[in-house]
């Protein structure tokens, strides 16, 4: 209900009347005026556009909503939020990751800008870092990653910036992997440590990611493991920790890791 009728212009008054938003007194008063004022009645007719077609048209639009992708967006927001809440962490992250994978098959959802905070968490062991990356990777699908457009100049700049932050020389030969196309190089953060994240697309299998964390220590060698449908391997060398992960067969991950380890090994 609105304020007194003398506070607003005639058109606004008539519209409020049409929408049933006038106080009873103002409503009655206007009806009286309309009865005797032909010009006012004419103006009312001009304004009296039916709103039902607008409502009906926009309701049709609801059916066109891309529900799986929206649900994916919601699930990823929940994962991100629960990562910050230690009470829920393990249990809900696992449940959410499973939900994401369930939706992921048909959904084709891709987050254009993975939040750096996705990797932030307190704690210290290998497992949590891997958990976080697994959670993030499960949001990606082959088609959307393949569709990322690469600007060569921009990518060179990104690699330079990322390499500098990690004290690594990330030249093109260093990051080129056979059968893979580098789509994105980003600098993220995990527990205060810088993490280089290189995202690759593949024609043959799902996306692959190489993560390099600036932190010494950790296991020096690894074997391919599997989690949430992704294969991965991690190792440490020269003051950095490496994680290679992807929706690719285990032997492929293994072979790629060999290459990377040979290039970056001390």
């Amino acid at each position: 209900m609105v304020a007194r009728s003398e506070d607003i212009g005639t058109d606004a008054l008539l519209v409020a009347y049409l929408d049933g938003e006038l106080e009873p007194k103002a409503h009655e008063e206007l009806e009286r005026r309309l009865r005797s004022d032909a010009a006012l009645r004419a103006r009312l007719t001009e304004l009296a556009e039916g709103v039902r077609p607008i409502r009906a048209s926009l309701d049709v639009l609801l059916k066109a909503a891309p529900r799986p992708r929206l649900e994916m967006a919601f699930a990823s927001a929940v994962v991100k939020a629960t990562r910050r809440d230690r009470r829920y962490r393990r249990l809900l992250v696992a449940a959410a990751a499973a939900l994401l994978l369930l939706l992921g098959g048909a959904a084709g959802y891709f987050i254009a800008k993975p939040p750096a905070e996705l990797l932030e968490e307190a704690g210290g062991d290998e497992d949590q870092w891997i958990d976080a990356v697994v959670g993030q990777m499960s949001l990606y699908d082959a088609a959307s990653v393949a569709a990322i457009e690469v600007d060569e100049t921009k990518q060179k700049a990104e690699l330079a910036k990322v390499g500098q932050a990690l004290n690594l020389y990330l030249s093109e030969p260093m990051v080129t992997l056979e059968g893979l196309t580098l789509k994105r190089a980003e600098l993220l953060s995990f527990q205060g440590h810088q993490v280089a994240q290189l995202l690759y697309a593949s024609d043959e299998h799902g996306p692959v990611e190489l993560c390099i964390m600036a932190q010494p220590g950790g296991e020096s060698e690894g074997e391919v493991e599997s989690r949430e449908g992704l294969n991965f391997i991690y190792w440490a060398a020269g003051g950095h920790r490496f994680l290679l992960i992807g929706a690719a067969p285990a032997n492929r991950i293994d072979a790629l890791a060999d290459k990377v380890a040979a290039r970056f090994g001390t």
Partner: protein
Amino acid sequence: MTATAHDVIIAELPALLPRLWRYGLVLSRDHATAEDLVQATCVRALERSSQFAVGTRLDRWLFSILRSIWINQLRAQKIRAGHGLIDAEEALVIEGAEQIETNIFAAQVFRQVQMLPETQRETVFLVYVEGLTYQEAASVLNVPPGTIMSRLAAARLKLRNLREQAGEGFQEK
């Protein structure tokens, strides 16, 4: 045990996703941006769950958040990128031949609504589609109720003009 705001949001937000997307589409007139808006809204809603008063309307609260993200972040980006109107028919593609007849008319109406200037468009949307009262719309849009009324009046006249230009005889069903 009473539900926390966080619990309520987790439980009730999924059902509201299509309406949030629709609002994002009306504001941005771009499919990709609409999805970005929904995602950003989900994140912020969970981050700010303590600000939601359990028992009040979750949809109104989420609309405010979505709008705020649009105004403060994505609108400037989109203007720079030079996106135009989305194709009305494209937005209304739905399976089922029986829908087609309804859709052509719906597409016309939708296109006309999308031609309104942003302030009129979102006021029409909130009041006439989402059914907010003038007071509720004034709250979401941060304007006095008088402004809501004058926008609706201007929008009605503009839609009438658009319909006349399109040569449509108008019938209220």
